[in-house]
């Protein structure tokens, strides 16, 4: 997946979002080993400290875990991944609804449109 970082949000948050997507989409499957901080930083053209920060946060969330000697891995717990997937989906739906509201549609109208 290509790294598309926008300007107005803190970079580490965007990196976290991107990595969540990569994990949910199966680019980094459950239990697989992640590239090193430096490799990920180069790939995303971001500062290694920022990448480190994003990874630590994802670790706190339980989506990835680190093994002192052999690097960082995606969790083997499928429910954590499915929950993350659900959260990402809710986020997208919220964005969609906000845009539709901006266009002047009400919730029932949106559902109507979706059925067509």
């Amino acid at each position, binding site marked *: 997946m290509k790294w598309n*970082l926008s*300007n*107005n*949000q*803190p*970079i*580490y948050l965007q990196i976290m979002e991107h990595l969540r997507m990569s994990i949910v989409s199966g680019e980094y499957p459950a239990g697989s080993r992640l590239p090193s901080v*430096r490799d990920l*930083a*180069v790939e*995303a*053209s*971001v*500062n*290694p*400290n*920022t990448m480190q*920060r994003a990874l630590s946060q994802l670790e706190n969330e339980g989506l990835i875990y680190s093994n002192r000697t052999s690097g960082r891995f995606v969790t083997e717990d499928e429910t954590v991944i499915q929950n993350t997937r659900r959260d990402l989906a809710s986020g997208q739906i919220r964005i969609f609804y906000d845009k539709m509201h901006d266009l002047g549609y009400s919730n029932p109208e949106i559902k109507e449109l979706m059925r067509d």
Partner: protein
Amino acid sequence: MDFTENLFNNNLLECNKLTKIFGGTTALNDLSLTFERGRIIGLLGPNGSGKTTFIKLINGLLVPTRGSITINGYLPGVETKKVISYLPDKMILNNWMKVNDLVSFYKDFYEDFKEERAYDMLKDLDIAPNARLKSLSKGTKEKVQLIMVMSRDAELYCLDEPIGGVDPAARDYILNTIIQNYNHKSSILLSTHLIADVENILDDAIFLKYGTVTRYAPVDQIREESGMSLDELFREEFKC
């Protein structure tokens, strides 16, 4: 300063009320700040804000009018030149040399110069080692100069406008080189106007205005607090 003291003094650079006055013009005014190790620091400010003056003071090319500056606890001099790799804002290469002469020259001059790294980068950027510097374009010469600077294992890299004159593809390569060379022991100070290009790789940003620091904070903190990118904030704060 003895060795043990040095070991515990983790600040790579310290300035205390650093001031530089040229005739009647104050280029830097009462600058007090420190650099930690392992940071990539952007020195940002409009023309004439004191960026190059600051970098020259770090490198001992200028002497402070007042105040002090130390690197690893030393005043600028022989000891600090061993650990600082400096890219000036001007071309300093000898035109009669060939690229590989220059590599030998740097290798001879600096103990920490890594010849292999230099040749790898020259190859990546398609620059022939036996080309005469005279025959290279301005942008290519800038690349060569930067390669020499980045091929040292320095503790502080001072890059004055490293990406100003090169094409966007080479710019990406240079920024990636900076990320790849990054380590916890050394810091990189880079001055530039091209903020949008560098903001993703910076840890910290220093905003300089009329010789005074108006901001010195981690980039993500600045983004969080202002809700703007560094580039947008810069345009706003330095609006003409």
